[in-house]
């Protein structure tokens, strides 16, 4: 196999990594700020994909993605205010995990009842057409857009977290909740914001895939476990760690599948995680404060 093939696998890895990065960053934000392992992340990603499935034919690609992000962010706030915040404080960690699991069961099976189990695809004319040629490497436009959206979104997330007071406050809550209280940060407000961000990111991840893949209620099941693994490898709660590992895993899977079989591709991430856990149980980019 030649260089073109390597480049093509590399490009696939970047596309794959971009989807993972959006999901993993959302999961890491929610975990870091709220100390909640969000089992419903896959279900919310699926909802995002369905939202885009309904929005994009009406509004076009870019506005459809924005609308999806906004809708999902609002849903995040509703979930935080309506459910997560109301958990009794004792043993909140494992309870929040189980609560989101219940939520995932409701959303996913509700989607099957509502929309049927079968796959749906956007009509041909609502999808980004054509493809890019980078040298000999062919990248369908829809897939290139995934990378564009991911890079833009993650860049904005970086600026938000590092250059704004509210972003600093979010990092503050995740690094030292007590200190955050002491300087006067309202945990409720930051909690809402974290859920809005996390769920919004999951929604964007789902939305970008809608024009490329088929949309079905089951689409969130397998991917959520993979994203958990990514976040664990990255160091629970570390957003940059999650993003870096997401791209690493995208590459890993692409090459494992390209030079091995589809099966090596699907287990590579879990083997990677087990290996990392043996060497560095706190994850690659652990923030020490947490975990």
């Amino acid at each position, binding site marked *: 196999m030649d260089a073109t093939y390597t480049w093509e696998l590399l490009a696939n890895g970047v596309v*794959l990594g971009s989807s993972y990065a959006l999901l993993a960053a959302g999961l890491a934000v929610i975990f870091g700020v709220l100390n909640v392992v969000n089992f419903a992340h896959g279900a919310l990603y699926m909802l995002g994909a369905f939202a885009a499935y309904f929005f994009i034919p009406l509004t076009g690609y870019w506005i459809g993605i924005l609308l999806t992000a906004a809708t999902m962010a609002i849903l995040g706030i509703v979930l935080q205010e309506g459910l997560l915040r109301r958990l009794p404080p004792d043993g909140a960690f494992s309870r929040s995990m189980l609560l989101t699991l219940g939520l995932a069961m409701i959303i996913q099976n509700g989607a099957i009842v509502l929309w049927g*189990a079968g796959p749906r695809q956007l009509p041909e004319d609502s999808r980004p057409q054509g493809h890019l040629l980078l040298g000999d490497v062919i990248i369908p436009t829809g897939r290139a857009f995934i990378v564009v959206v991911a890079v833009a979104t993650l860049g904005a997330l970086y600026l938000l977290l590092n250059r704004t007071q509210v972003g600093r406050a979010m990092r503050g809550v995740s690094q030292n909740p007590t200190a955050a209280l002491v300087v006067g940060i309202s945990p409720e407000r930051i909690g809402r914001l974290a859920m809005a961000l996390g769920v919004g990111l999951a929604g964007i991840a789902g939305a970008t895939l809608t024009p490329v*893949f088929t949309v*079905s209620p089951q689409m969130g099941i397998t991917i959520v476990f993979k994203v958990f693994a990514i976040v664990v490898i990255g160091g629970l709660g570390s957003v940059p760690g999650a993003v870096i590992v997401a791209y690493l895993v995208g590459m890993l899977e692409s090459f494992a599948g*390209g030079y091995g079989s589809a099966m090596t591709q*699907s287990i590579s991430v879990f083997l990677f995680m087990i290996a990392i856990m043996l060497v560095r149980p706190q994850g690659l980019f652990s923030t020490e404060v947490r975990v």
Partner: protein
Amino acid sequence: MRTRTLAAAAALALTVVGCASSTDSPDTNSGPITIGLSAPLSGPAAALGENERNGVQLAIDQINQDGGLLGSRKLTLAAQDNACNPTDGVGSVTKLITQQQVSAVIGALCSGVTLAAMPLAKRYQVPLVVATSTSPDITTAAGKGGNDFTFRINPSDATLAVALSSYLHKAGDVRKVAILAEDSTYGRTGAAALQKALNDKGITVTGVDFVAQGTSDFSTQISKYRNNGTQSVALYISGADHLSFLRQAASARLQLPVTGRVELEGQNLEILKDEQFAGSSSVYPYSSLIKTPANAKFAKAYESAHKTPPTYESFEGYSAVMVLADAISRAKSSDPKAIQKALVKTDFTSLTGGTVKFDAYHQAHDKAFILQIKNGKTVIVSDVVT
């Protein structure tokens, strides 16, 4: 405290008893005859199961309209979901036999489930008509293989694979084939059978990939096929994944014909019409295009009820009921054991124009068809007796 424990224990006993009281005793000589269907109605293969159920229901409705069986006894359908996994499958078949007292079971679409259900048919002595599972192992175990209660009316993967590779060999323009199969019994046995059949004809297999059901990203495989000299991709994937793959192949400009078990209909056909898939072919035991009067009637009735042409699964479900109805009439009884004896002597003309007649391994040999896309339309290239 003691009283509370006792109360809880009593409640436990009562709930179970409460269930038990809802049983009704079966009557085998009058009243409706119940046909059981175990099919995936949830999970990744749900759409296929739905198609099969539609076919079964259509056949039952037609028979009931024509006055029923055994002197106007109506047929009723008891359908259970098996989610395409053996564990649920065994549960569904157990429920059909022990609780719903069916006269025969049609099942179970997914090969893995059928294989798991077969011992139950034997244990409870209720005939199991296999209509859509393609694993060769089913034939090996049935009839002379020891399981007298299992009958299969659809051809096994081995025969289909031989038919397809003969065609590819004869057509002559494809010498390197990659196999993409779903990670299920269907995918694995299908891929193994095709690999062997292709090798026998001197066609190179460039690789076999098994992807998890529900996989959405095929970009790695597509890149691989583009770069390792593959001339055609043989698919053994079903439902949502099938469509996903074709769409991604189209937008990534893979420009290779597909073959294997491809349903050249519906949304698939919309994509495959494109020139880049020119020369795509498929082997199927059924096509709605088959030109027999019986099939035309069936296809018309089905289309008016469901707004789409019948699929392979609908056809096989329909056939299974017809074969069973034929056996029940000849047995003059709805007793499962009597039906089994009658099934052995089946000689029934199928919608395809072929004959359903069980061999020593309880395998029927209906026709199968090689289909191809020509000028954006599916055409039947040839038919073979399996």
